[in-house]
């Protein structure tokens, strides 16, 4: 395994963690949007706010981590990616601003009308942002980002069947993960009626996610044949893992094993991302492989060492953060 491969793996780990943790925070916003009238949805919204409040900023950093590692390790590919996908990335960035600010504003506001206004901004941007981020992944997966930054199609690169599919899958994944996590959070908070609500939503969004993924396969076969071939070729074991954990998660939800399903649902989503990575590897952009896109070994080695040292600081801090707020307060 070369240093470039290692860096791609770290990038993918970062992307996965953002999809899982940042994704669940966005999904919380989606359920906030669908929680119903203010009186009826108050308990749900409170649980969502309580769950994502202390952690969303730390979870959000994974995105920055991925972006900066991308340009550090693979500057040319990053430039093509950003220049071509200028529109969805701008919209996603604005969505990120709206989501974070509105969430923070709502938390310190007491008046009903303002809370509702900030809540609406928070919730709707929580849906829009993962969609646009998802379309950019679809653009890369369907080879619509050329390795030359001047040649990309600013519209067609992300507005096409594969990109729309990945955008929808991204939104559904956030919804599903959030519902699964919130069901368990509701259990810990000892709120049976909230458990029922989010369990129903986890089952519904999980099924919908599964159905959309199945519908997506023929779309990929037509629109991104190389990806389809890769998913059924080298990536097939990972695809199988994803399907197994997806079905298992639905079973565990039905059996009310909420703690365990946190893990299996996360693994199912993780496997989808890694299946894509395995299907596309070693091609980064059409005609550009990972080793060709990578910067000089000296930079790669230095960055990998920095990542290792940084992880020693980061991992215990993150674990403490999660442990502190997952633990019941006595």
């Amino acid at each position, binding site marked *: 395994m070369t240093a470039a491969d290692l860096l791609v793996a770290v990038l993918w780990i970062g992307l996965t963690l953002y999809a899982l943790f940042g994704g669940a925070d966005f999904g919380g916003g989606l359920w906030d949007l669908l929680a119903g009238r203010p009186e009826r949805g108050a308990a749900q919204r409170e649980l969502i706010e309580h769950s994502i409040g202390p952690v969303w900023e730390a979870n959000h*950093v994974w995105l920055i981590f991925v972006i900066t590692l991308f340009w550090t390790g693979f*500057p040319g590919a990053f430039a093509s990616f950003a*220049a071509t996908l200028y529109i969805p990335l701008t919209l996603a960035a604005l969505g990120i601003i709206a989501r974070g*600010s509105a969430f923070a504003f709502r938390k310190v506001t007491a008046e009903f009308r303002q809370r509702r206004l900030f809540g609406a901004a928070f919730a709707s941007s929580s849906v829009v942002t993962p969609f646009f981020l998802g379309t950019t992944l679809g653009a890369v997966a369907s080879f619509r980002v050329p390795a030359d930054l001047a040649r990309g199609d600013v519209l067609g690169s992300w507005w096409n069947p594969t990109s729309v599919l990945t955008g929808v899958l991204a939104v559904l994944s956030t919804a599903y993960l959030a519902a699964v996590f919130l069901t368990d959070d509701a259990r810990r908070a000892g709120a049976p009626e909230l458990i029922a609500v989010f369990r129903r939503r986890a089952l519904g969004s999980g099924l919908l996610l599964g159905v959309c993924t199945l519908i997506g396969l023929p779309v990929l076969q037509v629109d991104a044949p190389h990806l389809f071939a890769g998913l059924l070729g080298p990536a097939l074991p990972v695809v199988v893992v994803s399907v197994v954990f997806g079905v298992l998660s639905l079973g565990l939800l039905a059996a009310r094993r909420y703690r365990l399903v946190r893990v299996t649902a996360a693994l199912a989503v993780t496997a989808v991302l890694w299946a894509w990575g395995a299907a596309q590897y070693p091609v980064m952009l059409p005609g550009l492989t990972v080793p060709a896109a990578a910067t000089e070994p000296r930079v790669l080695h230095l960055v990998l060492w920095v990542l290792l040292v940084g992880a020693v600081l980061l991992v215990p801090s993150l674990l403490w953060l999660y442990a502190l707020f997952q633990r019941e307060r006595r």
Partner: protein
Amino acid sequence: MQLLGSLLAEAATPGDMAAARTQMAFSLGWHIILACFGVGMPGLTVFAEWRALRTGDPAYGSLARTWARAMGVLFAVGAVSGTILSFEMGLLWPGMMGRFGDVIGLPFTLEGFAFFIEAIFLGIYLYAWDRLPPRVHVLTGLPVVLAGVASAFFVVTANAWMNQPRGFDLVDGRVVGIRPWEAMFNPATPPQTVHMIVAAFMVAGFGMAAVYAVGMLRGKRDRHHRLGFLLPFTAAAVLAPVQVVVGDWAAHFLADYQPIKLAAIEGLEHTTAAAPLSLGGLQLGGQLRYAVEIPNALSLLAHWDPNAVVIGLDRAPAGLRPPVNVVHLSFQLMVALGFAFVLLGAWLAVVWWRRRELPGTRWFLVAAAAAGPGAVLAMEAGWVVTEVGRQPWIVYDVLLTREAVNPKPGLLAGLVILLAVYAVLTVASVYVLRRLARLGPVRAPQEEEPG
């Protein structure tokens, strides 16, 4: 030869290029205000909490909690408004990131970790006030303070690199032999990072003090307001003279390393021995007019020698000179405000030394209230100087801004949408912060939910 090639290169459409520059300037200028509070505010908050622990004085405790509540909002908006900047590096300037992303990647990777630590411990600091023993809680604030300063340092090293690109070789236009540490610790790094970090503490200090100055002007003269004013104001006022010295260091640096930027700052057309210092004035028809000139002062300030030769704009080809007026006037504004802050701090120091009391006149509080927005203005003016003064280069002497811009159409539309979003964001931020200020001190625990 390379220069000529650059000049002849096909330029991106001027409208899109202007849009890209405006968008970058606007979103950076907006974010940096929040970033200053993110760097400066945790230190003051942790200090207040520590005093509360040491003295048992509840006024300190309620100040710490009040500031923490505002910090939660400011940090959230700062974090997300900073995210778009990392996007924009690629969206707007792919020509720079594609060639040099790896050269300046190291500080951004380090910054990623600093930001992580900051966000994690801020989450703990804000939300675990009642879950942790008081002594542990105050300690969780320290990583926030350190990581905030470290973040500022790392990001500014990347900007310093754009002024003094180092740590790579150009072979036939290709970037090779990358040396990331050398790129990060370039000659502009020491003066620029120190100048910015001190500025961040001044913006946060004067900004926080201004809130209480306004409150005292409205007749709220209780202990909470007096302490809330004095603590941040003193911190910022102590730094004001330090910043004058640091700023002088930064100007000396320019004289040696970026003389064309200094020439734009001073409006100096021609390379001159025994150059005078020009106060005010406007460049009209290639000449600085209506300025008050102090003989020999520029040579003295730039080179410690009243007869030294100071390089003028004429040393750069006509197409490679920065615009003079905006750089010159921004610099003068920044320096004038900087000295005003020193005087304001001295005013308080003298009165306090003689009477252990705030100056009795309302005008002191009016000036202190104005110092909040004034510090922001000075900091923004400083950024205009360093960024516009580097033009037309995005990477000084290596890459022109117009070669780096995204060649795609439609950047102007993106700018319009962004400005609309930021207009709403600005109104909402000001509204929420004003409401928080009017809510008064927090005495109840930070978390509202039932335990």
